[in-house]
């Protein structure tokens, strides 16, 4: 994907080249001469399918890493105004829910979920979300896919310019009862983390009990 930004008199031209597409967008810009590109997260949740199913016995924990392709937010002026958001990778649409009546539209990510961080792409076009899953119930938990609530996550960078979000903790208390916790702040392993972009929807506290199922067995 190639992104071109051109400044003309009172105009910004933004062109995206991707697999032959050449859509051009023109933005009126009287005063702003500065433009900023920020990595941000997509505007829907991400449904990530594990490369292989995981069984989590009662009392056990599992740490997974989910990689999400970033969107590039183009801002101009001071205070910054969002001109456009460009996807770095086209993710297919998918549905996540108990049935076709109740649920939500998500983006599908079938390859970027692993228990090993080194299996995932570590570049500026991908954001890593650490997810800790703890089985507090008496039954064994079969994990096949996860829904990551990207709308509630921010983007941080570390010294190596790797991008991260807040960690997520999932607790299976009983069958079909999952509690989700968004840890405030970046992962503790990061040295000198820097906040790049804030979440699209702010959480009042670090805890969010999502009413829709977070995992699907």
């Amino acid at each position, binding site marked *: 994907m190639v992104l071109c930004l051109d400044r003309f008199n009172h105009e910004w031209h933004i062109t995206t080249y991707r697999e032959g597409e050449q859509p051009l967008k023109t933005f009126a810009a009287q005063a702003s001469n500065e433009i900023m590109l920020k990595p941000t997260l997509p505007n829907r949740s991400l449904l990530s399918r594990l490369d292989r199913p995981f069984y989590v016995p009662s009392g056990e924990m599992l740490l997974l890493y989910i990689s999400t392709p970033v969107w590039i937010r183009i801002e101009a002026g001071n205070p910054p105004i969002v001109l456009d958001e460009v996807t770095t990778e086209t993710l297919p*649409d998918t549905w996540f829910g108990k049935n076709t009546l109740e649920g939500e*539209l998500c983006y599908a990510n079938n390859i970027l979920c692993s228990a090993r961080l080194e299996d995932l792409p570590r570049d500026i076009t991908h954001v890593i979300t650490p997810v800790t899953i703890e089985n507090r119930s008496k039954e064994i938990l079969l994990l096949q896919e996860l829904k990551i609530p990207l709308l509630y996550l921010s983007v941080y960078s570390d010294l190596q310019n790797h991008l991260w979000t807040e960690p997520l903790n999932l607790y299976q208390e009983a069958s079909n009862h999952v509690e989700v916790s968004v840890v405030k702040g970046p992962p503790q392993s990061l040295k000198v983390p820097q906040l790049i972009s804030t979440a699209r929807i702010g959480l009042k506290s670090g805890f969010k009990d999502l009413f829709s199922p977070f995992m699907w067995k």
Partner: protein
Amino acid sequence: MSISIPDITALYKNSSELFSGFDLLLAVRVVSYFVFGIALTLYVCRLIGNISEKHTSAHHSQLLRRLTFYTGVILSILFPLKASGIDVTALLGVAGVIATIMTTAVAFAAQTSISNFLSGIFLIAEKPFEVGDYVTINGTLGEVLSIDLLSVKIRTKDNILVRIPNEVLLKSQFNNTTRFPIRRCDVKLRVSFTEDLQRIKKILMDVARKNPLCLVTPPPELNFVEFGDAAILLQFSVWTKQTSFTSLQTNIQMEIQAALYAHDIKLPVTPSVPVLS
């Protein structure tokens, strides 16, 4: 040209003599109150409409505006009359008597309207569809423009207004195609008996995977329907966002045809049966 006060007074006296027994000032006052009342009603209607659109559905907002309008019009008529000293209760009493007589007389004639009115109330309470939904009623597909007390108005895709009485709606089956956020698109295929169905399945799944409008979950499905007379009947089902259904329905069938032809799979033609006269 200037008019002096004595001229105005003389004009008034002449007018009063001309319309003896008719108080011109009172009439002007009543009309002014009425006009002001209507203007205020229209302003309040617009205000209520703007506020209710943010908190309720388009249909409820429309109902609130109409209720406000009719209430405002009635008050705009009654208030000026009362303020001018006319006995409104007597008017209401007379109106009540007339209404009672009329009610009996028109009861039989208004059966259909009453039925439509009651059906409208049931439809409002049940809410099988809302303004903006796409519904199919008696074979007519269109967007619901308004849900009124006597009828529902829909706009077809070729921009024709169709009015359907509420009584008909309550008695008929209708389909709401926009109630749920995702929808399944079924493509029926006839393939030759000699074709490799596994190969066809692979081709179709590939078409769905490459089409950005197809959802990953629920996954596409290929179902064997029956051994037909001249071909095998298959049904290929893919899911999509409700808003993308029309686009998907067209372009996936074109993509399927192109993919099958690219793999040298030709769709069989239904043999024509000669009719002997």
